[in-house]
């Protein structure tokens, strides 16, 4: 965990998650500023808009714009939800934010609640991170005890309650409407949109859902101003961003860097490619993002626009690095198995298609590929993409399409020769457990 940023910076010692430590780092100053200076909800939203903060969960939707969709005049309950159901393979940033800096999320959510007129929020925490959930509950209690949550926060007439909700580990519950279903106690399955959560969300009430890192960025924006945040990054891509670097690097971990930092710098921060081997491929935004060849990646900067231009997505910022010892067929087989297992089963193309994809790739990997299998795979992905209720169908298809697009010859070799292009001993060498 290394940082030049705003969320992970100043996290020294083992009590960084405590309220006192957070306050010492300037925490809750933003909230206090809002209350003391009586900053209006509109001003808060316009500050967030100015910051060009884009959703850190993966879609990169402008946060200020999303907040402005909430019908502030709506009578009755409005809800706020934080999506900490971090399940995307390769992504582990929200876990660290909640583990080391939970109050930044709490403060961000209080401010968001203030801006959108929500009186109640939920933080949906991924099912497989237990101590993080407990720690967040403790942080909530600290905030309640300090009068930062509950009725009449800091003596103002603004009230906001926040609760943690522990999921059960389903990837699909990271899809925002499935997350809402899950909070409601139902099976986590995405809803058909429209209606969108801003008009029909949790318990049928207007709801805004943001990612953990998005909320954690809010206090800085309010404290230092939207322009300051924007200036940290580059136009249209404000602020800093956490990247979870994993795979064949010497120092895997979370790195908070300004948006627009060249990929080569990030790779350097992560200690470079293991064993001095050649960079083969990078998945720049979590397993759902299309894979890019290493050479393309070395020319990219880490921001939404640059990665998008190169044909992939910044996504959640999970950078999966693969060196030349990687068998791309095997890598794709594992990814496809993930989507096959995590499809919720609600709509036909994803329920049936993800299993089909996995089985064909599994067959190729095991030397049973057929000459028309690559066409078949492409055709299945076309039939899934854009025809499902949620984005999981697309997420399962994009890796397949991009792996075949950039590494088609490896697949063809597998099919033709019933074995891998990368020699077995090289593969073995590359997959040795890394010891720092």
């Amino acid at each position, binding site marked *: 965990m290394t940082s030049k940023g705003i969320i992970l910076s100043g996290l020294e010692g083992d009590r960084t998650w405590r309220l006192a430590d957070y306050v010492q780092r300037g925490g809750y100053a933003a909230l206090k500023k809002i209350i003391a200076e009586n900053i209006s909800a509109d001003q808060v939203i316009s500050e967030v808009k100015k910051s060009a903060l884009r959703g850190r969960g993966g879609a990169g939707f402008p946060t200020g714009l999303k907040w402005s969709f909430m019908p502030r005049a709506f009578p009755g309950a409005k809800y706020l939800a934080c999506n900490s159901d971090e399940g995307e393979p390769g992504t582990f940033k929200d876990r660290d934010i909640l583990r080391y800096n939970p109050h930044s999320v709490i403060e961000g959510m209080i401010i968001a609640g203030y801006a959108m007129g929500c009186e109640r929020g939920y933080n949906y925490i991924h099912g497989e991170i237990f101590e993080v959930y407990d720690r967040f509950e403790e942080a909530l209690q600290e905030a309640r005890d300090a009068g930062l949550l509950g009725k009449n926060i800091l003596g103002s007439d603004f009230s906001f309650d926040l609760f943690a909700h522990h999921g059960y580990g*389903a990837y*699909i519950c990271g899809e925002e409407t499935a997350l809402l279903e899950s909070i409601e106690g139902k*099976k986590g399955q995405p809803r*058909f949109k*429209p209606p969108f959560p801003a008009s029909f969300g949790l318990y049928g009430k207007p709801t805004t859902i943001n990612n953990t890192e998005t909320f954690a960025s809010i206090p800085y924006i309010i404290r230092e101003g939207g322009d300051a945040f924007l200036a940290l990054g580059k136009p249209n891509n404000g602020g800093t961003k956490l990247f979870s670097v994993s795979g064949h690097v010497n120092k895997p971990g979370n790195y908070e860097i300004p948006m627009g930092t060249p990929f080569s710098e990030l790779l350097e921060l992560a200690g470079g490619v293991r064993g001095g081997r050649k960079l083969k491929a990078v998945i720049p935004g979590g397993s759902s993002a299309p894979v890019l060849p290493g050479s393309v990646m070395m020319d990219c900067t880490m921001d939404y626009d640059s990665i998008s231009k190169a044909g992939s997505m910044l996504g959640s910022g999970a950078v999966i690095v693969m060196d030349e010892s990687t068998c791309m067929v095997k890598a794709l087989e594992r990814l496809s198995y993930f989507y*096959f*297992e*995590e*499809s*919720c*089963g*609600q*709509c*036909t*193309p*994803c*329920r*049936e*298609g*993800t*299993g*089909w994809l996995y*089985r*064909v790739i599994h*067959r190729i990997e095991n030397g049973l590929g057929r000459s028309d299998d690559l066409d*078949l795979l492409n*055709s299945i992905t*076309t*039939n899934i993409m*854009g*025809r*499902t*209720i949620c984005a999981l169908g697309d997420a399962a298809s994009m890796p397949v399409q991009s792996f075949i697009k950039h590494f088609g010859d490896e697949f063809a070799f597998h099919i033709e020769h019933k074995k891998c292009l990368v020699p077995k001993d090289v593969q073995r060498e590359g997959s040795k457990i890394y010891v720092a």
Partner: protein
Amino acid sequence: MLEIEIDGKQLQVPDGITVMEAANTVGAYVPHFCYHKKLSIAANCRMCLVQVEKAPKPLPACATPVTNGMKVWTHSEQAVKAQKGVMEFLLINHPLDCPICDQGGECQLQDLSVGYGGVESRYQEEKRVVGNKDLGPLVSTDMTRCINCTRCVRFTTEIAGLMELGQAFRGEHAEIMPFVEKTIDSELSGNIIDLCPVGALTSKPFRFGARAWEMSRRKSVSPHDSLGSNLVVQVKNDAVKRVLPLENEALNECWLSDKDRFSYEALNSEERLARPMLKQGGRWIETDWQTAIEYVANGLKSIKAESGADTIGALASPHSTLEELYLLRKLVQGLGSGNVDFRLRQSDFSADGKMSGAPWLGMPVADIANLDRLFVVGSFFRKDHPLVAQRVRQAAKRGLKVSALNPAFDDWQLPVANRVCVPPQEMIVALAKIAKALSEQTGRELSVQVAAACAGLVVDEASLAIANSLGSGRRSAVWLGNYAVQHEHAAEIHVFAQEIARLSDASFGFLGEAANSVGGYIAGAVPFAGVPGKNVTEMLSAPLKAYVLLGLDPAFDLGNSAAAAGALKGADMVVMLSAFKSDSALEFADVMLPIAPFTETAGVFVNCEGRAQSFFPVVKSRGESRPGWKVLKVLGETSGLDGFGFEKIEDVRAEVLESDGTVNPAKLDNSVALNVESLRAVEAAVQRIADIPIYSADPIARRSPPLQQTQDGVAPSARLSAATITRLGVQAGLAVRIKSAYGEVSAVVAEDDGVADGCVRLAGAHPMTAALGSLHGEISLERM
């Protein structure tokens, strides 16, 4: 209105509808599986993807709202490509077993695969296998064929009101299943068979009975409850193979209750009476029709000559046709007697002659959707009127507030805002208090009918809540259920309910017990139509010499089976016109004449809203059985009576109905002119509350094996509240001896806090409880 274009056709559609609904209006068929007009939108099958201008990808027609200026192509290249893609996915794991699938020939997946499926499958991996589920005696499963459209899940939750099915597991492992070790026990469960677009859910009783294309489809009307659901009876080789709903938005919509759907299994029962039979020297012998008819005609003639016409009486089942009821009345009256009745379970007749017409629902069934307040008095509502309750359930979602008064409650699977549960005797006081509360609230005076009785009453919270609810409605209704009609003081309940309806400007009506509960009045099969006579209670308590029984089983269909047994045993002649043999017929009757059930005769049922629905026979009469109206006509002629020269059933009908075949609306009137002077003292003794179990109500349903195997067919238990169990010193789970004035039975005690304190709920119309005689009154419990 919005201007849109579908497949090049310009049209104007109302705001808020979906592309699917708009396409339907111009006859553009969009293929679909999960979409169903009566269910919520799931948008999960993805078969209805269509091309929409400016949309980057195809959109599901079922879930996409129309917008002004929208251009839709349902069969463009993009749309069809998407639809074919989805079809391929649906088929990869679907077994290719159409030749051995019961759904074959009427399968939506099979039909659509002709248009959208490939010639050959590109999927060469192993197919999915899903374990079958035991959903009970009505629905058979082949879950490997399931395409997870969730229509069945949505039906049970939304229409039947109870979440009995769900989709468990994820992704490819997703399975539709009931709760662990549970079956589907809804009284509407059969509808999931119709809804299932593939062969995953099929009819268990019908299973492999015939191919869809081998059967002819014939229209009919359900003979069971008072709704008069429209049926499609499917017939092969002159046998009824199965029954499906005939869509009628005004009545059953596209649904059927399980009773309507599965009772046909009784039609081929071994208990069917095949030939006329005479009892001679204590032995039953088969005979021909002429002998039997002459025997009956002569018997009636000599009894009339010896003892007078008023010693002849006739009782008819309210499930008989209008023509049968009319001709029975005409026969009895022709013989000079007024003793005819069809209100078999009724026990209080003090309103006879004081009612202005035939009691009916007081409103069309379709208008239930517009109600905002409803007060149901004396009804086992959900089981007695499954599809009316379903309509109320839907209306409740749109804001209808339901109040109810009954001595025992089941879960109605719909929100009941105010529930008053009191012993049968106290129902009248409860109604009086509500009337008084309404009077105080509205400032309108109580009518003389009830004013004296209400004097000095103190309004309590519960009655005030109901009064407030009814008083605040704009379209309210007060309904009397079967229990209210069977109540020992039904006339007083009638008077007070009428007063409550008057004070709250509510529509007032009767739910009606049977298919012809209104028709019986219209046919005049009552002892105050023209010739005065004895009602059913009088006929059985002061025994007559001769009884003609039409379509009923004296052991189960009468309010007091013990009195009936005594009366029939002592009679000189008992003539039974019935489709079935029964133990009591074999014991008490002297003549049994086989008459055709509803599938083998023409007739009319007048439903609760006064709608006369005629139907034709769908199969030939079985054995020697004949339509009841023909038997009665010949009996009338053989008896030498005038006015029986009918040539066709329409001639009979013409004497009862208007020339256009409808009921004269002036004949439908719920008002009663009766004064209640004082409220009766409440007795402290333990009272019996008898519900009529849904599948015990009529002779056909009682003989349907699959219906009897359901949870609604289990042997009745003695249901008591926890407090009553303690008070009486009995124990839940153990058998007790129950005694009434007529006899005793034993039953297992069950705790049921839906039962009013001091009462025992013990079902009637059942062999286990028949010995108790009356459905009402004092009983005692003893530990065994």
